[in-house]
């Protein structure tokens, strides 16, 4: 049973990712409490069936507690939530109404219905989530029970795996860092650790026919490097399923037919001089876009990169990616896809391919498809325009001029001191 306070918080803050909005701007505090009292009468719960949930034995988070929680998590929770908690389990889930549901990706607390306070997580583990297959781990009649201590340890572990890098922030500029020498073209190249990450929300394509309302992906993180010749972009996004058509394991977990997973970058063919960009939905009749689309491959076909030029979604030209030097490769690991795309800064067909330029703010947008969630064609998630910037090396004058100012001002002071001494 969820405590009265919980209901009250939902009425106040709403529940993120659901149709439950916040009501604190409409209802007064007393009204909210009145509603809580009323809701409790629905199922005869105005008198608690058992006492409200008890937090008195809370275990403070520590390295030891997290380690223990991790062990318990792998045994009891990974079947649905995945080895590393990204919701990439092996069990197909549905809610009480029979609709397909996907387990929570526990590394993204900003997608939680409430938040990732250890108490909130402990409450979910103890009570389960009614309407879903998330059971109560404190129910003595259930086969799956955890001791009070184990539940606190798991809660501490879950709080510890939050990955804030993947949380989209206000900054929408993907900064490509200039490096000397070869660019990484593998996803696991250690060089990537020094690149700057920028994350973006992805929302389902609800703008043109056929609109898509049941996404399973929600954000994408990008990093980039460039040198004098090439640009290399790493895309990382959490996907609960590795969708390989023809693969038996993929078929077991998929919703409907297994289609390929996919990711795409969209760029204008011409970097705009002013504000005016191509329409973010695959360009328009006067301003075409380049689309680089990587597909994960099938059981009998390897991964591939496609190059498309589009003047709107009805006017799409398939081009030869190899001719422009565009390459891509990806790896799936424990609920995350990582794909690297690489191309030369300049190509031969200047009127058809984007020519990258250092220091120019270049519109960029992303799209992704989860093939185990029936996504293909217009059914996908996407971002609107953000920015890619090939960040120029900071000019040396940025450091030298302030030094000169320091010296000049200090010199001025010395002169002042000397002249005043002379006067005496």
């Amino acid at each position: 049973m969820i405590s009265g306070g919980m209901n009250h918080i939902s009425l106040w803050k709403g529940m993120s990712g659901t149709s439950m909005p916040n009501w604190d701007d409409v209802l007064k505090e007393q009204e909210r409490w009145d509603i809580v009292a009323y809701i409790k009468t629905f199922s005869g719960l105005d008198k608690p069936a058992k006492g409200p949930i008890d937090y008195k034995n809370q275990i403070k988070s520590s390295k030891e507690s997290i380690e223990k929680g991790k062990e318990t998590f792998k045994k009891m929770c990974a079947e649905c939530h995945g080895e590393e908690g990204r919701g990439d389990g092996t069990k197909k889930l549905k809610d009480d109404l029979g609709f397909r549901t996907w387990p929570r990706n526990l590394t993204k607390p900003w997608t939680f219905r409430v938040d990732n306070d250890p108490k909130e997580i402990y409450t979910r583990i103890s009570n389960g989530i009614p309407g879903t297959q998330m059971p109560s781990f404190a129910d003595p009649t259930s086969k799956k029970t955890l001791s009070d201590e184990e539940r606190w340890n798991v809660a501490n572990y879950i709080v510890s795996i939050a990955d804030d890098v993947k949380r989209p922030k206000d900054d929408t500029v993907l900064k490509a860092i200039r490096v000397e020498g070869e660019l990484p073209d593998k996803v696991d190249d250690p060089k990537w650790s020094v690149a700057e990450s920028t994350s973006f929300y992805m929302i389902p394509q609800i703008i043109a026919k056929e609109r898509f309302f049941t996404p399973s992906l929600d954000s994408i993180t990008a990093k980039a490097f460039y040198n004098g010749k090439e640009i290399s972009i790493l895309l990382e996004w959490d996907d609960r399923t590795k969708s390989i058509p023809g693969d038996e394991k993929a078929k077991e977990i998929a919703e409907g037919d297994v289609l390929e997973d996919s990711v795409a970058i969209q760029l204008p063919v011409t970097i705009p001089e002013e504000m005016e960009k191509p329409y973010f939905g695959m360009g328009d009749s006067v301003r075409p876009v380049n689309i680089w689309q990587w597909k994960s491959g099938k059981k009998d076909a390897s991964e591939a990169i496609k190059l498309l030029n589009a003047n709107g979604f009805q006017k799409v030209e398939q081009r030869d990616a190899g001719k422009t030097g565009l390459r891509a490769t990806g790896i799936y690991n424990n609920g995350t896809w990582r794909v690297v795309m690489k191309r030369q800064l300049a190509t031969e067909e200047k009127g058809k391919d984007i020519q990258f330029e250092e220091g120019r703010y270049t519109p960029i947008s992303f799209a992704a498809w989860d093939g185990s969630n029936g996504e293909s064609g217009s059914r996908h998630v996407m971002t609107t325009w953000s920015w890619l910037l090939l960040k120029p090396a900071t000019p040396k004058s940025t450091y030298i001029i302030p030094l000169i100012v320091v010296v000049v001002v200090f010199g001025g002071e010395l002169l002042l001191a000397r002249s005043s001494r002379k006067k005496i």
Partner: protein
Amino acid sequence: MKIPRLLLFVIIVVISYGIFKAPGILLNQPIPSSLIVMYMFFAVVTTLLWITSTEKGMQGLVGPIKTMIEDPSKKTLRNIVFVIVPLVAGGITYMQLKPSYEAPVELRSIHPAPPSTVKVFGKTFNLATLVNPYRKFEKEDPAKFAQFVKEGGEVYFKNCFYCHGDKLDGKGHYAHGFNPLPLAFTDIGTIAQLQESFVFWRISTGGPGLPKEAAPWVSAMPVWENFITEDEKKRERQYTTRNAGGAMVRMGRETVLQPNF
């Protein structure tokens, strides 16, 4: 007690800076830094003119500085100041020169001037003279009108609420993924201020139908002409216009809570 002139000067300059910075810190509506530089210039010059307008004031301002430099007993203080001043000057110069990699600021018109006519559903509508054909029922047959508004509400919840929200506040499920954000109809400056023909145009032609100054390339508003019928659109507009804006905000929320209108 009379405040020493030098201290007074410093206090006035610091307070002025605080006042110019306050809107940015407190209300998140910062004054552009170039303007602040200009305001500060005037604040400093005016204060200097005022203080140095009398001989005594001039003495009060320059005196302590002179003493600090000349008086051998103030040597330590002088040395500290002589180190700090160049470092602060260098620091300010660096902050000014440091390149910024923030997204470029792009201004767009939220409610651009509509065209005189719009061609949708195979017909040309004159937006200057177009009136909502259902509006007349508001007086003639309120029950019928209420029914239309209710139907409009259904269309809204089947199509629009994913972005514009349950409470018409622009905070729908997917609103966070868009830039510009979906419009809040509860905002006094939106629907309540607009003519119904304007709203009809906006719904029918969506983002791509916007003129250049409104940045059609980033608006995620669908072209509803492709989805819903002319009739549905008018009723839906009735719903949003009736339920939003100004004094009607409160009422709008209540209608959402009790969909019987």
